[in-house]
């Protein structure tokens, strides 16, 4: 079930460094939200705070609230492992598990959570690979190592792995930045497809990509070196790219900045 995310006055720190200042935004369900902005503006950090991956780094700290359908994922009673099971993530560089076959990579999340039923695992593997538009390319070599696939295939394998655990939300951290245009197109089509079932948040440096795949766009910026990143504005993608309300957004989008 796709769920909505509400971020309320989120402050993020790495040790003493204040990385992101006072972000509030809402991500509706079954919707693609793109985060854009110059390097170092904290968009990836915000993304990683949405499934409690931010705190994996040593000294990283979070203030504020992230509500998943009204439930605060940072409440003291909440198990971060469950949060990550509910909110999946795809990373910048494809990172299949090198010791596992293609099939085992896809079902790794279920298998390591204790699922033993082979029939069920096979079903999930096929469904997830079909969902990631990879099934036809790998169905004859499911027992081969995942590391033998091309970069674009590996990234789709990682998406299949992320959707195999049936998360409510899918976070994508520049999923196409290491891929060629054809693989990028495949992933973008996939995102449009996945939107029917999942809430998606994607960080991208490619503004055409943001314009192509997203329904709403959030623009992040930082005022200067050493300053925390801020959310400048968030609005419908069409509005952001045609008629943004902030000057900084317009400058960035039209290439007069960064």
């Amino acid at each position: 079930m796709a769920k909505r995310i509400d971020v309320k006055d989120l402050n993020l720190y790495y040790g003493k460094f204040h990385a992101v200042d006072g972000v509030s935004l809402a991500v509706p369900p079954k919707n693609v939200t793109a985060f854009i902005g110059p390097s170092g503006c904290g968009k990836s950090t915000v993304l990683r705070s949405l499934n409690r991956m931010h705190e994996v780094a040593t000294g990283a700290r979070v203030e504020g609230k992230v509500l998943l359908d009204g439930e605060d994922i940072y409440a003291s009673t909440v198990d971060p492992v469950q949060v990550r099971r509910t909110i999946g993530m795809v990373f910048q560089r494809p990172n299949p598990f090198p010791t596992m076959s293609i099939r085992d990579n896809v079902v790794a999340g279920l298998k390591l959570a204790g699922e033993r039923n082979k029939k069920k695992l096979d079903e999930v593997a096929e469904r997830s690979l079909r969902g990631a538009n990879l099934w036809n390319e790998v169905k004859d070599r499911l027992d081969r190592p995942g590391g033998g696939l091309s970069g674009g295939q590996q990234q789709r394998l990682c998406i299949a792995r992320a959707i195999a655990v049936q998360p409510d939300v899918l976070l994508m951290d520049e999923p196409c930045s290491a891929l060629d245009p054809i693989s990028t197109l495949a992933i973008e089509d996939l995102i449009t497809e996945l939107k029917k079932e999942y809430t998606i948040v994607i960080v991208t440096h490619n503004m055409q990509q943001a314009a192509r795949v997203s329904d709403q766009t959030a623009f992040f910026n930082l005022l200067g070196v050493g300053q925390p990143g801020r959310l400048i504005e968030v609005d419908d993608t069409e509005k952001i790219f045609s008629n943004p309300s902030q000057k900084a957004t317009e400058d960035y989008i039209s290439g007069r900045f960064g």
Partner: protein
Amino acid sequence: MTTETADLNRLATPPTFQSVSTGRKIKNGIATGLVWLAFAVAIVPLVWVLYTVVQRGLPVVLDPDWWQKSLSGLLSRQQGGGVYHAIYGTLVQGIVCGLLSVPIGLFVAIYLVEYGGRSKLSRATTFMVDILTGVPSIVAALFVYTLWITTFGFGRSGFAVSLALVLLMVPVIVRTTEEMLKIVPDELREASYALGIPKWKTIVKIVIPTALSGILTGVMLALARVMGETAPVLVLAAYAPFINYNLFDGPMASLPLLMATERNNPTQAGFERIWGAAITLVLIITLFNLLATVISRWLAPKTK
């Protein structure tokens, strides 16, 4: 005529590229010579040692008796007999040492890489491991003698040897395992966390399998190294020319101990036993190294 015009043109604009200058050619020659010299200096003793050991030891170990009999009942000048009692001692002491060291070393390394971070305990542990790496084997042997034999009152035995070897092996395993765990990319850990896999399971099912081939190579090499240690066996185990299956009691031979003992035997039989034991030890260690290579190839992450 045309060549002359061409020469004139060249004078006007000197060519961008020239041939390698004489100075650089000379320096290159000297450097190449030095590299080859260093290579020869390193390889000559190695080949020499191997040649001597094989030449003197091979005839001895080709006798099947060597692998099947002990030296029980033989006079020191009597030729023949075998050293299976010493091979047994070396293998058992080494393997028991490995069984004790591997879990300790593995867990210490996991703590240091996955949990310790930059905490005080972690830094203190790293420091201690560094010191332990530099402890000479005789010191480890004397320490175990003081603790196990003098203080606790146990007798000299093969197990005491294993304990001293543990002291030598643990830091090596910690170091190699630490290095292997460190080169597992954080991206894999994050990918696993992002699937809702808890940290301990990520370590057991993702990180360790990825690093396993390197860890095993390290363990095998460490094992090969400690099996050749002489100081602990000299201090902690009495020599026996017969087989003793009991690791915890009584004198127990091992290959280094046998060699050290037979060194006092001036006869041809003693000479043969020393070189035979030497080549046996080299063969066992080579076997372990080969095993390590095969296992790590078999376990290494594949791409095809």
